[in-house]
């Protein structure tokens, strides 16, 4: 049986890291790679520190995101908390401004 696919996640800064489809979350992979602006976070969808826009690529949502940080409209536009998603393809992320 093949291992779950690993996808390349690229930040606006040009930094990139890899995240497996069965990883903990994109945020967890980003932290392991010491990439991205958020150095710490609740990882539970509550604090909003890992909010970003998925500019390209597909993903799945693995836990609820606090509506204090991501409205249903935001989510429909690709705005997510990285601790709440896993990739289904390579992803390109863009900043939306940290709260």
């Amino acid at each position, binding site marked *: 049986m093949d291992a779950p696919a690993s996808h390349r996640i690229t930040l606006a800064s040009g930094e990139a890291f890899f995240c497996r489809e069965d990883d903990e979350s994109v945020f967890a992979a980003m932290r392991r790679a010491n990439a991205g602006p958020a150095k710490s976070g609740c990882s*539970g969808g*509550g604090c909003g520190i890992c909010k970003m826009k998925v500019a390209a690529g597909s993903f799945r949502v693995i836990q609820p995101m606090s509506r204090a940080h991501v409205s249903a409209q935001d989510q429909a536009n690709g705005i997510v908390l990285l601790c709440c998603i896993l990739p289904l393809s390579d992803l390109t992320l863009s900043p939306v401004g940290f709260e």
Partner: protein
Amino acid sequence: MALNQTLRPGLIQLRVLDLDKTLNFYKNILGLDEVARTSDGRVCLKTYDEFDHHSVTLRLADEAGLDFVSFKVDSEETLDRMAKETEAFGYPVKEIPANSDQPGFGRRIRFQISTGHTFELYASVELAPKHPGLRNPDIWNEQPHGMGVIRLDHFLLYGPNIAEAERFCTEVLKMYVPEVCNLPDGKRLATWITGNNKPHDLAFVEYPKPGKIHHVGFLLQDWNHVGQVADLIAINRLKKDIGPTRHAITRGQTIYFWEPSGNRIEVYASGYTASPDNPQRVWDSDHLGRGLFYYEGEMIPSFLEIVT
């Protein structure tokens, strides 16, 4: 012992994003016991060593964070007087009937303070079905499980105009302020407030957004207990924020970590014994990092940036 009418924070209601996963944490890892469920699906919990009906209520919601905190006062007379004084202070008061949304609790008064947080006061609450022994008691009846936290201890709230919130706590709730942190212009950056001999029942940090909670603190026995909890944080793959370390402020030995819905928990031991006649300790804001994280000697950015 200098109990000043407001006895302690006795109840907190938190919003959680995933009730099953988060409840599993509170019961099986933090070590609380489930006391009751409400008809609208909220879950009421307490520690093994608390007498009162429950101290933590979890509510499934689409945002994490704090619904309200509730303080126990020493009598119904104090409750009536504080209701009047709260109105006079400028916060409209609403009364919540006994045994309504919080099973086992007597009437509560509810109001919003300057920081945007909802506060409540109550005087009467039933004993929990399972409470510590009263006659020739053992130290516990059922062995504490998980992290085995002893009691709901305190919380840290973030919001605007903490100077007014502090004044409300001292003037109306008759609490006192063992420690403060001031900005160079003399304005409050943070304040630690208590109604008893704990170094804090609650604390505030000045913050532009209203109604935010930084953490809920639960009491541990000692430094060794802090170490056991650190093991459980690692074993259960919980997300640790800071520690184990020591606060110079309050002197507490501590770990911060996040529960599964992203609310921050502190486990805390060995704070000093506060007394209202002791002089107030004052921290300059450029020393706050060392005051909070004594072993690290500097501020840890996540402490000031991440709230729910």
